Each structure stands twice: as structure tokens, then as C-alpha cells.
């Protein structure tokens, strides 16, 4: 089975792009399945099911979605193998811009849209920087010049990536994209493989359910903004000393 990890900001068109691309593989009688990771709610699994795609969904709820992803991906791979899939696609949203669910040696795809603003490629961290393929969507509604400027911004941030334009509505570019899905190595397990980039750090008192505001309730991995010397110093000695810059 091949594994493809697709991620990208919310509403960038991940599901539409995957759906259009799937069609070309289904036409070749390949068995494609999807695992959809989201936070609180998604009904995308229904959309996949409707077109005959085996699908599993995982909602991370109160947990960091990326930590949730990495804790479950091996089980998903085993599910895919049991379902006799030729290709398993994992779809997850990069919500904090620091997320990057990519695994080394596994095809990594970032979906980002032309409407998101030309500074967005710089704002999105490892999710864009460490992708093998960057898919740019919604190219049908912006000018040629804006498409070129946007692609060149993406290229600056990730010069290694292959940049492709795919239209999630008409499917333009999706056939071309589909030819790359089967390029990767066969995967029997992801156990022992490494993430391309560490997950966003966490574990402060708020991760554990604290709701009160104020220094005395902040423990663990807490970092204070540097607002110059105009504010009174309220940093707690319990906060990480490394962050005291």
C-alpha cells in the first residue's frame, strides 16, 4: 500500500482536491481509502463514502490535532492494509500553522489556496516548508499575475517542492497530480519511521484543563510575550527559564 499525507489550512480545498484526484485512480481500478483527521466536527467522511471510498474519521476533540494524528497513524495504516487498499490518503488540517503531519519517506502534500493572501506562504511553517508537493487551489478566480506571484512566494519558502495548480471544482490538474500518488514506496508499517518535523510543543496547565487566567495558574511550558519594559514583571518562577529572553 502507498501512503499519502495531505494537509493544509482549513477551507483550502483539501477534500475537493483529494476527491477529484481519487477518481483517476478509481478509473484505473485502484482501491483508495481515506483517513480524515479533524478537531471538533467533520462530515467529509460522508462525502467520501458516497463515492465508494472506504473512510475512517478521527476527531481530536480537546487534544492537539497533530499529537492525535501521530498517535493514531500506525493503526490507520494497519486498517488500510486490512482493507486491501492500494493507496491510503490521510487528510488533516493545519490549524495552528505550526502543524506538520509529514512522515519521512512518505509522500507529503500541502494544499494552499490563492485567495489566502500573498504573505500566507511565509506564515505557514513546516506544513508548507517540508512538503514534497504543494498544491495551489482556487486558481480559476484570480488573475494570472496573482497566480504567478503566489507560486513564486511558495517557491521561496519551499524551493524543493513541486508546485502544482489543481482546481477542486473542475478537477483541472487533478489527473496530473494523481500520477504522483503511486510514485512512493510500498508501506507495510510506519512504526519506527520519523516525523519530518517535531510536533507543536504543549503541556502547560491549560492543556490539562485549567481555565483561570493569571500567572499563578500557569505552570509547565509557558512563554511570556516580550512587551518591552512598560509592563510590570509578573513572570512566575515556575515558568521555563529558557523562555526568559
Amino acid at each position, binding site marked *: 500500500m502507498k501512503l499519502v499525507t495531505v494537509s493544509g489550512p482549513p477551507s483550502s480545498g483539501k477534500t475537493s482536491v483529494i476527491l477529484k484526484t481519487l477518481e483517476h485512480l478509481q478509473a484505473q481500478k485502484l482501491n483508495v481509502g481515506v483517513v480524515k483527521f479533524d478537531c471538533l466536527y467533520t462530515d467529509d467522511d460522508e462525502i467520501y463514502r458516497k463515492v465508494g471510498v472506504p473512510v475512517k474519521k478521527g476527531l481530536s476533540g480537546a487534544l492537539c490535532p497533530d499529537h492525535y494524528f501521530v498517535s493514531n497513524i500506525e493503526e490507520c495504516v494497519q486498517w488500510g492494509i486490512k482493507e486491501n487498499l492500494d493507496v491510503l490518503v490521510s487528510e488533516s488540517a493545519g490549524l495552528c500553522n505550526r502543524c506538520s503531519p509529514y512522515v519521512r519517506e512518505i509522500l507529503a502534500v500541502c494544499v494552499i489556496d490563492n485567495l489566502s493572501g500573498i504573505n500566507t506562504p511565509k506564515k505557514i511553517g513546516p506544513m508548507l516548508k517540508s512538503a514534497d508537493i504543494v498544491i495551489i487551489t482556487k486558481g*480559476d478566480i484570480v488573475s*494570472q499575475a496573482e497566480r504567478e506571484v503566489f507560486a513564486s512566494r511558495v517557491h521561496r519558502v519551499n524551493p524543493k517542492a513541486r508546485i502544482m495548480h489543481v482546481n477542486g471544482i473542475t478537477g483541472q490538474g487533478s*489527473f*496530473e497530480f494523481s500520477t504522483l500518488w503511486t510514485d512512493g514506496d510500498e508501506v507495510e508499517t510506519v512504526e519506527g519511521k520519523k516525523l519530518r518535523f517535531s510536533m507543536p510543543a504543549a503541556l502547560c496547565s491549560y492543556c490539562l484543563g485549567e481555565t483561570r487566567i493569571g500567572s499563578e495558574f500557569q505552570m509547565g511550558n509557558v512563554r511570556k510575550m516580550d512587551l518591552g519594559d512598560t509592563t510590570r514583571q509578573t513572570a512566575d518562577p515556575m515558568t521555563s527559564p529558557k523562555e526568559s529572553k
Partner: protein
Amino acid sequence: MDIRKELASIIVGDLNSRWPYATTFLAKNDLEIEDDPSLKLSEVASDELLDQLAEFITEMESFLSDDEEVVDEITIFGGNCKNGEPEGVRELTIRVGEVICIVGPTGSGKSRLLADIEWVAQNDTPTGRSVKINGKTPESKWRTSSEHKLVAQLSQNMNFVMDLSVEEFLTLHAESRQTENPEEKIQQIWNDANALAGEPFALDTPITSLSGGQSRALMIADTAILSKSPVVLIDEIENAGIDRQKALDILVSQDKIVLMATHDPILALMGDRRVVINNGGMKSVVEPSEKEHANLVDLRALDNRMMKLRHRLRMGERLDEV
């Protein structure tokens, strides 16, 4: 790989003279290196960033040493229709400066033809077509590199979304294309766009407040002059607020191959040839006859009459007499 080795040992102070664009790249990746010129770059930048920088420099060098071959012609070798039968047109060569119209019912396969060109199909798409550039099997850069897109696209639904003035916008585009003499090019685009649009606009007009005709005019002039893609694909040019013949002339004068999907008889007759698409295949190539060209005069007159009626309607007149 030599660049990567050089980066491992280079000191910050030498970086700028060796690769002037490297500093910008590092700044874009949130690394300011101006503090201490004697510092080794490898001490301030991560290995990962240096890998990326090496990649970027390699691409920039190949980009700047641009003695690359100019696209003179594209040849499409026919494949199959949707039903698997071979398509009618077996070989079609389109040269720079030509305007080719693409006609056919909705869903007939116009988009697939254009996609085959953009992807420089090598018998590896659903149609089984293959495409050659200048008579040769094309280099893979036409597929893989975002700097070498074969096709630029203009369609009716496209809008400007950036919050910039015309001049700022063109400057940004020129920068991203690494254009020489950007001021001159910007002036030229603005002049050309104003010549196309009925109502003139200023350089400091916000692009989002341009009228439909002005936007289309600016997009066409910008694509003609700043876009490096040798093929321009146009999906209709509405007959409102823009001189369509002049628009095609500007594109052709910049050595573009123009492909235009249209249902408009006047536009279709402006082309040098037209490709008829049916059932997923290129059915035939039609060259406008003398009779057709003669009819163009009548069609234009008809069109003018409609425009005048539209104008009268806008002015609140009745259309009792047409």
C-alpha cells in the same frame, strides 16, 4: 552538491557578494545575518535551512543563466476520443504568433486538450496524446518547475483579489518574475491596457476597483508582457469595455501562442485556424474561408447594432424601433 559544501564553510560577510539573493532568501525564512560578518553561516543557520538555500541557489543560477531555448512551436499528436476511437486530427503544429480558436459543445473535451498541452502529455494522459516543443520531446522542467509554466490562463471568472494599486501590483508581479527594467515594463503594460479599455484608469487606481473591461485589459497586457509562459489560453473575451482585436494583437506581438476557447462567431473568425472538439477528440481543423472573412464585416455591423440597442436601453429609451 558543491554549493551545499560551499555554504557549510562560507562566512556571513562573503555571502552577499557570492549570491546576492541568498540574504533575501534567509530573511524570508526569518534569519537575519547582518550582525557579525566573520561568523560562519553554518553556525547561524540550521542544516535544513542550508539544504534549502543550496536548492534555491541552484535554481536561481539556472534561472539567471537564462540562455534557454525560445518556444517557437508546439506540436500535438492525436490520441483517442472518449469512445476509444482515434481522434480525427493526427498532428497539429501551432506556431508563435498564431491565434487558434477552440470550438465545441460544453463537455466535449476542450479543457482536456488544454490540460494535455499544459502537462506536455507524453502518451500518459487519458487521451493518449503527446506534445512536442520545437519538434522535440520536451524537457521535464515544463512539467515540474513553477518558473517554467507552459501555459498562462485568462478567463472570464478571474478577478483581482489583492488590495494594491495598479502600479504596486505590477511592481510585485515584475519582482516575482525577476524582470529587467521593471519601470519601463510597467509603463508599457499600463499604456497597452489603457489602449484596450474604453475608459482610461490611473496607475494609482486600486486594482479591485477597476471595471470589468479595465480588469480584463490589465490582465491581458500584464500576461502579454510580464508572464514568461509562451502559450496563453483565453476562455472567451466578452464584448464589453475592451477592444478584442487589439487584445489579440498585443498578445501576438509578444510572441505568444494564443489558444482561445469561444462560442462567439466574431472572435472565432479572428483566429487563424479553429480546432473543432467533439466527443473528447480533435475532430478537425478549420481555416476560415474568404467568404467567412467577408462575413466578418457583416457580423461586426450586427454586433454594433446590438451594442447600440444596449446603450439605448441603458439610457432609458424604448426599443420600439430597432
